[in-house]
């Protein structure tokens, strides 16, 4: 196989193509559902000329879901990309490090304690997920920290995996206290249900995700140097400790927004950086946006497929992604060993 070179111009072209694919996927996704709308009908609705029924379908049901899918994809893609580059390990992701499970546990505690009492949760949920994710990240850090030594990425990931199973145990314990409705919610949430498709949630998630993404794209030059190793980065004049901490918090925040409102998209954070790296190479100025876009495309496509096949009951999107991604992941593993 001939090796292609990753030039800047080529990278920009690929980013534009990916953005177009994302928009195309979004349009197809708006058309898809129990009540199908033609492309021209969708455009008429978006221009404000639709019937009440069409307006309801597009603006209240499909559009919020599509925007949620894109935001969750952005967050997971960026978060996974930061974690893999900071730790220089291809297995790092919000899922493998146990950050998602930490966020999930806090969301669950909230559901158990308050959800039935009708607390407005648009702000509370992402924030709780963030606190949960940050707690998980802090725990991993403390447990794998050895004074005076560099933190080993493998150690971090193993600690993350161990903590993850701990959270799962706690989660199971807590679910015993749930009624049937809450139980359903938690199960579907855990499988990635994109449940928060409501404008009031999106109004919080959109600025949260977009501001953080701007921050990490702005920091892409720093991530490039950290990707060479902490000592090399220090030598180049990067203040490693504050940058590392700032970017880790951003990665946790990006993942937890998506986890709170979308569910646990375990594979997206791990796989999208790989896909992006294959397309645009290791320069984070291109890699970070490419990671975001592939995350969004992946979730959008999976969600559209989910709604098309319509297996009688609603299938959580995350399951489709797992089914789609597993072969790709096995392929990656096989390639890296060969």
């Amino acid at each position: 196989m001939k090796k292609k070179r990753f030039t800047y111009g080529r990278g920009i072209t690929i980013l534009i193509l990916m953005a177009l694919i994302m928009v195309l996927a979004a349009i197809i996704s708006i058309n898809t559902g129990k009540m199908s709308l033609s492309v021209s009908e969708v455009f008429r609705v978006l221009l404000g000329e639709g019937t009440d029924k069409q307006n309801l379908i597009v603006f209240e049901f499909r559009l919020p879901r599509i925007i949620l899918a894109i935001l969750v994809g952005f967050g997971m893609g960026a978060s996974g990309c930061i974690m893999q580059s900071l730790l220089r390990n291809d297995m790092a992701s919000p899922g493998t490090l146990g950050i998602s499970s930490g966020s999930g546990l806090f969301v669950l505690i909230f559901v158990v304690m308050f959800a039935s009492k009708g607390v407005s949760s648009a702000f509370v949920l992402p924030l709780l997920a963030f606190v949960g994710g940050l707690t998980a990240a802090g725990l991993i850090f403390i447990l794998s920290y050895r004074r005076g030594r560099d933190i080993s990425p493998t150690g971090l990931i193993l600690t993350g995996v161990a903590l993850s199973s701990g959270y799962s145990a706690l989660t199971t314990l807590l679910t015993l206290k749930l009624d049937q409705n809450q139980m359903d919610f938690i199960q579907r949430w855990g499988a990635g249900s994109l449940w928060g498709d409501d404008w009031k949630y999106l109004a919080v998630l959109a600025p949260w995700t977009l501001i953080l993404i701007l921050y990490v794209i702005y920091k892409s030059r720093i991530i490039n140097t950290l990707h060479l190793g902490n000592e090399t980065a220090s030598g180049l004049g990067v203040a490693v400790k504050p940058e590392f901490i700032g970017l880790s918090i951003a990665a946790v925040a990006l993942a937890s927004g998506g986890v709170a409102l979308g569910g646990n998209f375990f594979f997206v954070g791990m796989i999208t950086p790989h896909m992006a790296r294959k397309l645009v190479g290791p320069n984070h100025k291109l890699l970070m946006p490419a990671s975001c876009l592939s995350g969004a495309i992946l979730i959008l496509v999976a969600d559209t497929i989910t709604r098309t096949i319509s297996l009688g009951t609603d299938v959580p999107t995350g399951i489709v992604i797992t089914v789609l991604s597993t072969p790709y992941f096995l392929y990656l593993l096989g390639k890296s060993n060969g």
Partner: protein
Amino acid sequence: MNSITTEDLDIAYEDAMIVKSLDINIPKGKVTTIIGPNGCGKSTVLKAVGRILKPKNGMVYLNGDDIRKLPTKEIAKKMAILPQTPTAPSGLTVSELVAYGRFPHQKGFGKLTPEDKKIIQWALSVTKLTEFENREVDTLSGGQRQRVWISMALAQQTDLILLDEPTTYLDLAHQLEVLELLYDLNRRQGCTIAMVLHDLNLAARFSDYMIAIRSGKVIKHGAPEEVMVPEVLKEAFSIDAQIVLEPKTGRPVCLTYDLLSAEPAGEKEV
């Protein structure tokens, strides 16, 4: 004139003191090599000098300035550091990696200026990498890769380059190639080079100044003829060395050696 001076430097990992009240100089415009047994603290000293490791006590001066008072980016314009066996992300090309050396000179989003590009081309040509500039770093041989990292350090345009065992994992020919490149940089570009080396003969051949360390203490420093003597090597490595002068360069070489005791010198590797 000294590029680096340390004063009463204490360096510790947890409670284990690695280096205690160390005073060393790295003379400007010279090639300096630190030698010593495994675990003697030579890499640790280099890391402390390169502000990668925070010393417990004591001072490091860079061109006479307290290194703690300088912003890290300013230090990076004066001193480049090459860690032991750095790894490049897969897919990164030679010229991209060398371009990262411009980091301390860049602002904002870091678009390369024409001047940056000129310096990168210069760094590539000095290290004889121009023909490889579009190759991916991880497809190169060990010796070529080491040259890419040195090229990155050159693009940083510093007076001082610190290298931690730049010849690790290289065969005889490539070790020589790397050291000749460094020697050339010193003689032609006037870079001050300070490095840690294991091979005593190569150290004596290419250095102007050597520092022998054992258990975090300086045993002897000075010209290779003063440091590469049986008494110093006995104290540093616990070996009985046969030193002769190499006829071609006039530098001392260790012809052969025997252990003085059953256990070689050195503590646990850090």
